[in-house]
Structure formats: C-alpha cells, structure tokens
C-alpha cells in the first residue's frame, strides 16, 4: 500500500519543512555576514519536495542530490548541526569541511552524495540502483535534479539505461522553470520534463511541487512500484525557486514574484493552512514546530562555531583510500 497522507504524515512533513526553511534563512544571514564560506544555493520554495519525498524513504534508501542540496540532506536525516558545520568549513562538518555546501555526503543516512556539476549525479544513481539489484535488496534510489539537467546529454544516457535495465530508481525533477540564470523557455521547446521521457514508456507524473499532498501521493505510488524492484519512474515537481541561483545573485534575468503570489505558492504556508483547515493540527502545534526548528538551527550554529577548523594535514591525507581490498 502506498503510504497514506494523513495528519501524522502532514505533521512530520511540516516539521521537516520548517527545519529546512529556518536552516536556509539562517544560512542566508550567515552568508551575508561572511560566516559561511563559498558558493551557496538555497532551496526555499522546494522544501515540500525534499520533505515529501525523503519523508517516505527508509534510512537505507539512497538519495543523490545536486548543488542545491541542503534540504534533501536534512530531509534524508543528515544531522542539522553537522550540515551547518560543513557549510562553515569545520572539522565536525558532515564531510570534515572538505566538501562544503555542494558536496554533502552522509551515507549512514542514505545520502550517497551531492554533485556540483548539473546532472552529474544522474549516472551515479544508476550504479547504486544496479548494486541494490545485485545484492537482491529492495533498496530504492532517488536522484534529485533540476530542469536544467534535462538538456544535458547524460540525462538521456541515464534515462535510457535505467529504462533498458528497468532499474529500481526514481528520477525526481524539481522544475522551477529557471536553470541557473536562464528560463526554461530559452533552454528547450519541451516545457514538461515528464514529456521528455515519454517514449521510454515508464510511469511518470507532473505535480505542483507547492502542493505537498500531491507530491506525497504521487511519490507514494511510485515508491511502491520501485520497492517491488520495478523502475525507473519519473516525478516532476513544479516549484518556485524563491532565492537566486546562488546567494548574492542579483536576479536581473527575472521579475520578482509578487508577495501575494509567493504566499499562494509557498509550500510551507500552503501545507500549514491545509493541515489547520483539515483539523489535523492546531495553532499551538504549528507554532511549536516553528519554534523547535528555529531552536534546532540555532543549536546547529552554536555547534558549528564551537567546532575547530580541520587540521591542515587532512588536505593531503584523504586523497587516496589506503590499501588494497
């Protein structure tokens, strides 16, 4: 049975989305005050996809993400404090400060990795799905990517091979209509990513990524199929990227979304209103979820600040794994 969307699911997903939202807003402030180093891409507007998808996965299911990875990592169970420490380049960071925002890896929680080159993660997901089949496991692999990756050749290579070998893999596209700094209309004649894969004949769906119950339900059906060892599948979620491509992006290539329109599309506000209307949750619980998320993120910042920068010798030590098998 596909996982039901009910009050418990809504409350859990909402809690995760609040953590991601608070994390991203805090990172934006830390970036502006130069406490976070490097290139930062925030996922505000996409929290519902991260939480709705990862919220249904088992810890041993595999997830690959891309350059906009914070939300996926948190939703998959990566410790928030260690993600923050990674962004601040500290020794207690998820990757000891060697990877940073675009290269989060937490295999203990099934976050196999994030890649900073658009679409570079798609072929990796094939291999992990192939390994699951080889082991006789019912592990499912999910790869998150943006609509910008679809025009790259490796997207077609990966979709073709996954379809050919029927790999237990779910492609989750966050189509926010703008790839880096260029609108989808200037990238392709095909607006819907689910249409791009139509000839391969596997199950695909396009949902409003701001409609978290719709994301949940569509993914639940796909997950059941993939869990049975059949795939691939493709879920396209139409989202709005609230921030620029990167923090500091002047965004002169697009008109800002009117606040009223953002309020309509904000997946967090929508889910919260929906859950309140359904009577699944009350106002004090909503406030408690928000406060708990803020507190968790503040603890993460304190954890990161208390963590030392890594010993410099690590720079040379980790280039090669030691010893043969």
């Amino acid at each position, binding site marked *: 049975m596909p996982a039901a969307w009910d009050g418990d699911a809504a409350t859990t997903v909402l809690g995760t989305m609040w953590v991601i939202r608070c994390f991203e807003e805090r990172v934006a402030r830390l970036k502006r005050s130069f406490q976070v180093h490097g290139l930062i891409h925030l996922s505000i507007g996409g929290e519902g996809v991260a939480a709705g998808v990862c919220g249904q996965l088992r810890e041993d299911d*595999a997830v*690959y993400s891309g350059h906009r990875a914070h939300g996926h990592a948190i939703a998959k169970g990566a410790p928030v404090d260690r993600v923050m420490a990674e962004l601040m380049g500290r020794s207690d*960071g*998820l*990757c*000891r*400060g*060697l*990877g*940073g925002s675009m*290269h989060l*890896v*937490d*295999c203990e929680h099934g976050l*196999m*990795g994030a*890649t*900073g*080159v658009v679409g*570079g993660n*798609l*072929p*990796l*997901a*094939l*291999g*992990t*799905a*192939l*390994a*699951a089949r*080889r*082991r006789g496991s019912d592990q499912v692999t999910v790869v998150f990517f943006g609509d910008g990756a679809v025009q790259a*050749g*490796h997207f077609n*290579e*990966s979709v*073709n*091979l996954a379809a*050919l*070998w029927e790999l237990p893999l779910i492609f989750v596209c966050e189509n926010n209509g703008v790839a880096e700094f260029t609108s989808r209309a200037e990238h392709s004649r095909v607006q819907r990513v689910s249409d791009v894969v139509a000839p391969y004949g596997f199950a695909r769906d396009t949902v409003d990524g701001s409609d978290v119950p719709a994301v949940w339900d569509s993914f639940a059906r796909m997950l059941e199929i993939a869990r049975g060892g059949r795939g691939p599948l493709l879920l396209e979620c139409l989202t709005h990227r609230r921030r620029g491509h990167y923090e500091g992006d002047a965004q002169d290539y697009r008109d800002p979304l009117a606040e009223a329109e953002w309020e309509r599309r904000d997946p967090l506000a929508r889910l919260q209103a929906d859950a309140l209307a359904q009577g699944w949750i009350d106002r004090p619980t909503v406030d408690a979820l928000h406060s708990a998320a803020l507190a968790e993120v503040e603890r993460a910042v304190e954890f990161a600040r208390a963590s030392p920068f890594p010993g410099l010798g*690590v720079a040379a*030590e*980790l*280039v*090669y*794994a*030691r*010893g*043969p*098998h």
Partner: protein
Amino acid sequence: MAREIPYIAAINEAIHLEMARDDSVLYFGQNLATTENDEFLKAFGHDRVRVTPISETAEIGMGVGAALAGMRPVVELYMAEFMLVAMDQVVNEAPRFRYMSGGRVKVPLVLKAGYGFTAGWAGQHTGSIYGMFMGIPGLKVVLPSTAADAKGLMATAIRDDNPVCYFHHYLLTLEPGEVPEGEYLVPFGQAAIRRAGRDVTIVATGWTVGRALAAAELLAAEGVEAEVIDPRTLVPLDIATIVTSVEKTGRVVLVDQAPRHASASAVIAAEIADVGFSALKGAIKQVTALDATVPYSEPMEAFVLPDEGKIAGAVREVLGTAPVAA
C-alpha cells in the same frame, strides 16, 4: 608456473580471476559479451557482465555509483579517447567523491582503456592521453608494458580502493610474454629496471619501453650501457628508483609517446630536477611525440613518434658522443 601468453590474454586472465575471487567485481562496457559464448558471460552471467549502450558518461558514472554502493566495477572503454566524452565522471565524480566526503566513502573502480594505436587509426584513436589524468588527485594511472605486468597490474587495480585508469597499449595487444599462472599481483608505485646500465638512465613507458630496450642494444654496440626504467604506474610514481639510477649515471633521457607538453616525461623531468638535480651531469633530454595530432599516412605517423633511432640519438647527445659508423 609461467607460460607465454599474449598481453591481452593476460589482462583478461586477471579480470577473470578477480571476478572469481570476489563477486562484487562487475564488468561492463560497449560491445562486451554480445554472444552467449563469451567467456566472461559463461562464467559470471548477465548479472555481472553487461553490454552497455554507447553512453560513456552513463557507463562510467554507473561504475562510480555502484562502487559507492560496495561493488568493484571494471568499465571496458576500449579507446582512451572515449573517456573524454565522459570527463565529468572521470574527473569530477570518480576521484573527488572520497575526498569531498571527508573520507567517508571510497570508489573502487577500474577504467580500462586502450591507447596509442598508431597503426593507421589516425587522429582520434591513437592518443597517448594518460598525462592529463596524472594531474587529477584521486585517480591512479597504470601503464603496463609487458604481459606479466598487464596481468599483475590489473589484479592490483581491481583490488585497489580508488579509481584506477588502466591504460593498455594497443600495439602490445598480441605481444606474448611470460605470465605467472594463478594469483599474480604487481604492486603500484614500484618501477621495474628492464635493463641495468651505468652510463645513462632511460625512462620509458608502455610501448616505448621496447623501443628504449632496442635503442639500448644499438648503444651497447657503441660501448654505451643504458639503464632502462619502466615506472609501470604513473600515479603513484616511483621517483625514488629513477633518482637512484640518475645518481649512478648522471645522464637522463626520458621517452614518451605523448606529445611533449602533455607527457608524463615532462612531470618526471621536473621531479628529477627537483629532487635529483645535484646528481645530473647534463641537461635532461626528452624524446616524445611531436606536439601534433597523430597523422594517418604511415611514414608521417612514424615521423611524429619516438623510435629507437631518436632515443639512441638523444643518448649520444647527453653523453656528447657520436654514433659509431656502421
């Protein structure tokens, strides 16, 4: 027991033995095992031996993802140039994942590719492009020059916990050599002294090792004893064995089939200059391919490549001697 088998058979023997030893070893690539009579397919089945579409990025990336998930894939790429189609996976993903994860994961992967097919295969199938992979931290680079090394280095590559670019030389494919039976491993980072000599150190790789040994015979007739060193692996590079030889001879000729500015010899020359300069009695001489695409026409193809005459000439130059008249 050693017996004579061709270089290519030695490679296949190593892959076969490692697949029998460890069932996490997978083998896939284009045009691989396209009939049920394929020896790998018969032994290990479709689950572990797979033919892929012409999708280098997907093949190599899939290898990386399978390695991250505990497998040990060998990706058959046939031509080194085909790796260039998939450079994101070769350069950005395979070797960097372990590092960027802070050492939390490993990527045991072999990228097997032939190179240097200077037999009329022209500009896009003859390249000696291993040098560019020496500059990618996290990759290991292997260049077997004998059938025995072809076997032993492949076995070591499969057991290594890092991505290894295993470049076999197409002109050596059918070259027979004595190869030990059964398990046989050649360690990475240990150069082989193919010929001992006191007068000059020649460092050569792959097919040029044979050319350097032929040059050494020409020189021996002139009373010059050349030491010929084959690094066998470029990453890790056994610079100590090379410098020890230079300390004995004081003279160096480096041979490389790659164009000079993309050659391994340029890196080796710099290392010798850095750590062995005081032992040098003269300039380091490099005998490389011309900085040109390998041309098709046979005489011109030979013209751009190193050969025994050019190597012997370079040795005479560093020794300040003249050739003996025939």
